[in-house]
């Protein structure tokens, strides 16, 4: 049998955290670190290759790509974290309610809504929202959140259903705990750690999706910098100046990778099934 060498190895967690810390410092410190104004245009320096003056080159309006990437990270990261938190909250709430009242009408209705959302292509859904309400970052986030809570709700529900078979749940009931007290004291603490682990994995996908939707022009509007829309911008000049894509692409990859590593590390630490070993 293959030994799980990484099962107690914190390397992935540490690497992930270090990468994330560096990215966070760079992005949060953008106003201080960025060499130029991210929206300042300079017609004389269009599509320049990376140089000492512009480390990552310039785009078609002569804007410094490094500055734009650092500033753009604020929008991308902040909006993904915001969307994630909202989705987490909705997912936990819905999952707890469905699991607690398993088999009831409420459970059936919630689960069917989830099925529909899961069956519907997310990108199309986001475009429908944009079509209805217009483009813009807020509408993009609305679209993302309205679909993203589904996986958290599913996971929470299954954890709750599992916990309801445990002695501690029966014990709380016999001791006279109300449903609300049981959910708060017995079920929520059990659901939190697997849901958080899933969240770190989902965050990577979420960043990619927001970038992808911005790339399609549904998210942040020019001239505000955002990783996805920067990629979309560079697309037209890909053959002349491929370096335009390097900055935002590298940052997206690094961020997603960092969150995945953290998720993997957390799973190894918190996974209840790992604890079954003595």
């Amino acid at each position, binding site marked *: 049998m293959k030994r799980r060498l990484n099962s107690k190895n914190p390397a992935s967690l540490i690497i992930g955290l270090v990468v994330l810390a560096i990215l966070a410092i760079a992005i949060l410190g953008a106003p201080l670190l960025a060499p130029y104004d991210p929206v300042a245009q300079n017609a004389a320096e269009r599509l320049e290759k990376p140089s000492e003056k512009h480390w990552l080159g310039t785009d078609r309006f002569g804007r410094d790509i490094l500055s734009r990437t650092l500033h753009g990270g604020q929008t991308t990261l902040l909006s993904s974290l915001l969307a994630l938190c909202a989705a987490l909250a909705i997912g936990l709430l819905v999952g707890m309610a469905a699991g607690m009242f398993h088999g009831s009408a409420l459970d059936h209705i919630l689960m069917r809504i989830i099925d529909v959302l899961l069956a519907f292509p997310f990108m199309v859904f986001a475009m429908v929202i944009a079509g209805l309400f217009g483009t813009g970052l807020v509408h993009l986030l609305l679209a993302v959140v309205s679909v993203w809570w589904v996986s958290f709700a599913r996971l929470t529900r299954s954890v709750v259903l599992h916990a309801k078979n445990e002695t501690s749940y*029966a*014990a709380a*009931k*016999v001791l006279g705990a109300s449903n609300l*007290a049981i959910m708060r*004291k017995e079920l929520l603490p059990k659901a939190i750690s697997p849901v958080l682990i899933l969240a770190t994995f989902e965050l990577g996908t979420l960043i990619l999706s927001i970038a992808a939707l911005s790339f399609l022009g549904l998210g942040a509007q020019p001239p505000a910098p955002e990783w996805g829309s920067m990629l979309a911008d560079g697309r037209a000049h890909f053959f002349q100046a491929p370096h335009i894509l390097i900055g935002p692409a590298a940052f997206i990859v690094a961020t997603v990778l960092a969150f995945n590593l953290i998720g993997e590390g957390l799973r190894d630490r918190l996974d209840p099934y790992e604890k079954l*070993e*003595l």
Partner: protein
Amino acid sequence: MSSDNRAEALEVKGLQVAYEQNGRRTTVLNSLDFKLGKGEILVLLGESGSGKSTIAKAVTGMLPPSARIGGGSLRVGAERIPDLGKPGIPWERIRGRGIAMLFQDAQSALNPVMKIKDHFKESLLYHGLASAEGAAAISVAMLERLNFKDVRHILECYPFQLSGGMCQRICLALALCLEPAVLVADEPTSALDTVSQKEVLDLLRKLQREMGLTVLLITHDIAVANAVGNRVIVLNKGVIEEEGETRTVLTRPGSAYTRELLAARNRIARPARGLPPAAGKPVLEIVRLSKTFGGKKRVLRQVDLTLNEREILGILGQSGCGKSTLAKCVAGLERPSEGRILLRGADIGHLKGKARRETSKRIQLVFQDARASLNPGRTALQLVQEPLQYLRIGGKEEREALAAYYLHEVGIADEALTRRPPQLSTGQCQRIAIARALVLRPDILICDEAVSALDMSVQAQILELLQRLQRQFGFSILMISHDIRVLRAFCHHIAVMSNGSFGERKQESGRLHESRQPHTQLLLKCAGDMEDGLV
């Protein structure tokens, strides 16, 4: 056959095992030696923490990663392993054909998505002992040998369609197909009821007689040791206290520790006495209670039962007879399908919401697995306050004082008040669970197998504690158990349940043997046979 010219089937020398967790090292076995002769049943008898299961894991190479083997050699038949601590031991050669294992939970030892016949096929093909067709023939022969009726049907079943006792006998058949030199059985019957327990143990003896089966049987139960063991090793904290012929060790124990173990068992086996009379009005009346799951599976059929004030009533039954469902219905965890549950005349079977929660003050339940019923993150003092918080009784200081009082009453020392379940023993956890149930001053305490997971000495302590508390506070107890000894020692009356109903009214516990119910007689006989010869 004298024991001298017997060849050894298994020999363990200088076995040393420690567990390391969070940098703390706990030695479990310290230089242990023992031999197992061919065709012998050797019993390793010990309480939890004696290291008996560690031995089973060490000789099969299944110790968890936290275990550190300090040394020790193993010989199984012709196979010799000079140092168990070194990597690269050819376990795949030893396991199965050298040493076969029988686990406590047979049902989960089998793969739930595989039919029984596929289990046989897999194991025979893997070891290259038969072709696919040959495997079918071998499995039929083996199951017939193990007293199975309707073998063809059983081979087509999935494990979850069979009872725990049947699964254990199938595991035994699977192990024997490979003709192992030694069978290591780790508490093979502790999860079974008295009747299945006896079946499995009788089978082991029969196979020993007929095939010369060699068994290393690990148990905490003196009656099991008595029923099957040729020789017994009494283990205490990783050290051999005593070793010898079973009869000799159990009737004329040489070590003080063995005497203590036997005394604890006798305290439980002694018939009830010193109980205050159970005269009183009925507090709980169950009238024609039925419970059906999923519209078809009838678990309880028209059950009638009356529990009086200050009465200790035992409900005896095999696993799956419906006794736990009855407990759940009374405690409000399950809703009865038909019939009524009257608490002092008022029906509590169909209450909802707040009204149901109010009955928690009158009826409390203590679970078998005390540790699992306690939240591991809370201290003893916090745990006992839980019901008071849930039902909004008293202020902060009052709750804490009440919790401390009841913890003191159940014998939890002051320094343990701030400890959490992982730092407490199983016995202490059960004491805390009892305190938590009593803090509401209930009229009825239901104990659902509350002592069956405990060591013999702890069992005796908890039963004595319950007896004292019952006298002091005057509540009634509904004691649910599969263990006839416990009920006879502890209860005023016993009602025997089988297949979802009581065959007859409750009997005085001292006069259970007068029952004319064949099922009751069978239970009494099985328990009696196992104890046969014990003082």
